[in-house]
């Protein structure tokens, strides 16, 4: 429960940062997705259940600062956190490349669901341009940021929920 409660102010902060600061950090039309990175990091470092709650909360905050239908980003982030939860145990910690792999999948799923939502509401979309100008650059930036974000998530997780030690 504590993990979910911490997610509320953190997701609000990251959504505001996404709108004010990270929207200026651009590679073509792509930007790093702070909330997505946080959800993926928490899912790998801690629990998928909490990460799904973070995804729901973070998506709602992001939709407050966007013209996309309210709730649609929550669905995308919950779906991403759920997908990551499939491999059981410490699968994502088995190799240093694993977090990059999971970020690649998460970023692709997140943006594909975002494009699908906009297509569903009848917005004209350039699929080729969305892939080359948004999805690929965003994914690249997310890949760069996932490793430090994961270290932060491990640090936060160990500080808040120290592992039990038998004496």
């Amino acid at each position: 429960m504590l993990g979910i409660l911490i997610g509320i102010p953190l997701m609000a902060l990251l959504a505001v940062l996404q709108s004010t600061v990270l929207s200026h950090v651009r590679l073509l039309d792509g930007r790093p997705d702070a909330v997505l990175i946080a959800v993926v990091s928490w899912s790998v470092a801690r629990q998928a259940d909490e990460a799904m709650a973070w995804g729901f909360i973070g998506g709602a905050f992001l939709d407050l600062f966007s013209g996309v239908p309210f709730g649609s980003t929550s669905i995308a982030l919950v779906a991403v956190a759920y997908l990551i939860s499939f491999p059981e145990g410490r699968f994502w910690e088995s190799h240093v490349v694993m977090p990059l792999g999971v970020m690649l999948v998460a970023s692709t799923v997140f943006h594909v669901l975002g494009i699908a939502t906009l297509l569903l509401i009848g917005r004209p979309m350039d699929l080729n341009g969305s892939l080359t100008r948004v999805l690929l650059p965003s994914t690249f930036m997310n890949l760069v940021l996932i490793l430090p974000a994961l270290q932060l998530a491990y640090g936060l997780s160990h500080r808040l929920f120290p592992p039990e030690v038998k004496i």
Partner: protein
Amino acid sequence: MSRASSRTLIASALIVLALSLLALNAAGYIQPAENLVLRPLSAFQSWLATRYAAVRDFIASPSDVTTLQQRNAELEAEVARLQQQVIGLQEQQAEASILAALLKYAREQPESSYLATKVIGRDVSPFLRSIWIGSGSDQGLSRGMPVATDRGLVGRVIEVRASVSRVQLITDPEAAVNVRFQQSRADGVLAAQLNGELWVDLIDQNAEISQGELLLTSGLGGGFPDDIPIGRVLSIRRRDYELFQQAVIQPTVDFDNLDIVLVITNFLPVGASDGAQ
């Protein structure tokens, strides 16, 4: 219950909850709650946008950094205080010069009344081209009001909350503006392409448009006031077998560096929710 099925249950519950939010929002029931949450968040967003602009301006002016470093060598503690002051003053100066330019523009257009407001953020979706401004219904803004700077047309207000509003930029593919070329007086419709380019379509084949010609709003359709600059003609595409010619436009406004904008508050658009205005 196994852990996997418990997770599936939680994910399903959250997705059903999100779908309910989607439905409630479509019916308009969410807006009061959104306003309640957005009010403190937008105050923080505005505060953060100001600080971010200050830091960005500070980094972008290396000569001032050198000056501050020299002072730092003379009196370290004193300069630390001065440095903070300089950052604040630089930001104020930048804001003052923008406001002075906007005021000059407003004085030149006495028929319109303006509300100067800060740009506090951008749409978090990379697929939508819109910005958030720090004024809303509390300041008298309403949907459809045109937004400009001293350099030209920015877009129009498409979503109004209590303390913030969302402005659809003219570079958004869903925005359409009726336009007129200044010299040739030819009419057309400005529409952004999906790749972000601005095109004017539906220009009469007989119109003699020249490169560099200024493009203005025509006021036709009642969506925007007339004679607001938009950009200059970059290139023209004319094919004999087509009914109309097209022109590619270089906008006069730098959409990546919008700090303060003017909302034209006394202009009431006709059918604000329509496509081409």
